[in-house]
């Protein structure tokens, strides 16, 4: 290497030299690079790949090329009755389950707020359902609901009540799934509400009491508005989770009877893996993603959290 070049390189490598200056100038990009790369790899790339798959017909035969079909897979959503059934069932499940969980969770939190701080044991017991893996919950409820030997029908029999096919009856199957979900996730809402209640300021309540406001008035005008951010987060998380319901349905009913419990996640799974049509499965997944994003944005705006 000529002497002049050696000197230039040495100068650049010196503290305050070219390389160091370059690194300093681009430090923020360098610091961000790992995060951006991870984000690209784990979120952006799969999302684009899913979109790419959704506009193709993908044969299970690896020797056949992917056939570009444009918006055909999305158009199929309009005429696919199984998709419509799954969409309706998912909506019913989400609305009923999340509303019930919210009302029960908030009610329990209000009821036990004063006492629970001393009853650590009770708090731990209430947390158990949400700590269990969903598969374990589903199997437990399958045993409870078993029509011939299940504990629920045994109780019904001893009480002289008619036995029910809890997960097998078209009119009870969705209800049975909602009960299992409510059992598992009400504690989650309860704990969030409890944390929210614990952080409420005391002064407004003292002032309201001096003004003669009733307990109901205090709840309506103070507690609920103060809890609004916590309620928003709790509902948002539960709605997003409910839209992805899979385990309970897969194990308890398999989507039956008569398609009454077929939900979107189960249908996506069937289309992708049982019917070997990943292109269409990707289109349905994108639809669910779109709905989730729209719902979350609308909801956050409504709850004035967006800003």
């Amino acid at each position, binding site marked *: 290497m000529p002497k002049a070049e050696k000197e230039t390189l040495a100068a650049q490598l010196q503290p305050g030299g070219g390389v160091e200056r370059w690194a300093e100038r681009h430090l923020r990009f360098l610091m961000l690079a790992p995060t951006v790369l991870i984000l690209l790899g784990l979120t952006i790339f799969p999302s684009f790949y899913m979109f790419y798959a959704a506009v193709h017909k993908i044969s299970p*035969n690896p020797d056949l090329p992917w056939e570009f079909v444009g918006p055909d897979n999305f158009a199929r959503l309009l005429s696919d009755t199984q998709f419509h059934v799954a969409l309706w069932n998912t909506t019913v499940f989400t609305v009923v389950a999340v509303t019930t969980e919210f009302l029960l969770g908030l009610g329990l939190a209000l009821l036990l707020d004063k006492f629970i701080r001393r009853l650590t044991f009770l708090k731990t017991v209430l947390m158990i359902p949400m700590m269990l893996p969903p598969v374990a919950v589903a199997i437990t409820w399958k045993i409870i609901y078993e029509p011939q030997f299940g504990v629920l029908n045994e109780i019904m029999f001893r009480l002289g009540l008619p036995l029910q*096919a809890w997960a*097998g*009856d078209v009119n009870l199957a969705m209800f049975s799934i909602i009960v299992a979900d409510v059992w598992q996730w009400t504690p989650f809402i309860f704990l969030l509400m409890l944390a929210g209640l614990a952080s409420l300021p005391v002064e407004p309540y003292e002032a309201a009491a001096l003004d003669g406001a009733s307990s109901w008035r205090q709840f309506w005008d103070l507690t609920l508005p103060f809890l609004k951010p916590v309620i928003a987060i709790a509902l948002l998380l539960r709605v997003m989770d409910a839209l992805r319901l899979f385990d309970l349905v897969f194990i308890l009913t398999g989507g*039956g*009877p*008569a398609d009454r419990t077929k939900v979107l996640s189960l249908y996506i799974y069937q289309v992708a893996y049982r019917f070997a049509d990943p292109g269409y499965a990707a289109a349905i997944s994108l639809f669910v993603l779109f709905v989730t994003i729209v719902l979350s944005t609308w909801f956050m705006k409504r709850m004035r959290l967006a800003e």
Partner: protein
Amino acid sequence: MVHKLFLVLAAAASALAINGVAWADFTVLVPSSSEGDGLRAAADDYSKMKGTKVEIVQAPYANVFEQGANAGATKSGVFDIILMDDPWIPFFAENGHLEDLTAFYKGAGMEGPDNDFLSKSLAICRNPYNTGPYVCLPYVGNAQMFFYDAAKYKEAGVDAPKTWDDVLKASQTLTKDGGGRYFGYVFRGGQGNPVVADFMPIFWSYGANMFNEDRTKVTIDTPEGAAAMKTFMALRDVSPKGIESYNANEVGTALAAGAAASSINWPNWVATFEDPSQSKMVGKISYSPIPAGTKPGSSEIGHWTMGIMSASKNKQEAFDFMVWATSAEQIKISATRGNPPVRASVFTDPELTSQEQFRHYPVLMEAIQASTPRPRHPKWPEIENAFGIELSKAVAGTITAEEALKSAQAAVEQITGLK
């Protein structure tokens, strides 16, 4: 020093992870059931005998299909052999996931599988059915039989049920006398594969079929189909409440616990019914071929078969193992492990047939020889799902039997593109 040791261990672990199951000479994907357990035990014996390392990957029933399909579609070569349920064969074969075995047989100086295999067992391993090249070998000889409590049937005035009318007659009496706690009949009414599997033998026994002979027309909604549905609905009415969600376990448990008198079932349940630790009905269950409708009864064949994945890198090793595992000697050992055989010599082996636990073998062999395969179509999983939804609706009573047939006809026409 410790640092270096950790680095070496991490590098070794990474190499193993990257190579996947490369430490095995070949890998077999099997279901996590008695069929898979049997092949796992056979693989252990093979490893000890030949010094070959065989990796067995077990997965639940539906996951075996999914993992196999995924491995085939991606040509990953992660599995060398797949133990398949026979209705999956057209999907795997026609999408190029399975190896044609002709060349391997030629290489071994053989024409093909020997004549000791039951002809129906071999027919399903050819694609197209019974005419094409072999793409797998039969391992577990499942075919449905009719299971019934002979004493209860006798009480109800039926000595040995020969027809579905006999079954209905006995079941109606037994259910009526059971007071909501005992039932004459039980079946898998769960949506999808379960309800279809338990309906097809009834469908066939009334002369109905899903397609016409040259597969140019869907023939579900026919007078024969309607007759089969009428019987199926009558059987539903004498079955336990909640039948709409019943799968194999619920049916098996109902029979083993003495809560139901009869059902269509698979032979691998015999071991459970004859095991005092699991059954109240030891020695009390009788086995017969599928009852007749307006035509002779026909079982649904449900063999487990071994095929070599096209992307396998160890095809010869895989073929050698398959030939060894399906030899008469190994099939006999497999039978003692609870898996029904596929060879005539094992079905008639006096050493086995003299034992109480194998008393159903003559009936099972007859059932296999009189069996019908599920319609061989590469889109069978989708067809089965659509048909299963309509049957489930009929069983649940949300639509009539006639509506179910009409809707099923339309759905299958749409899936197959046939009219």
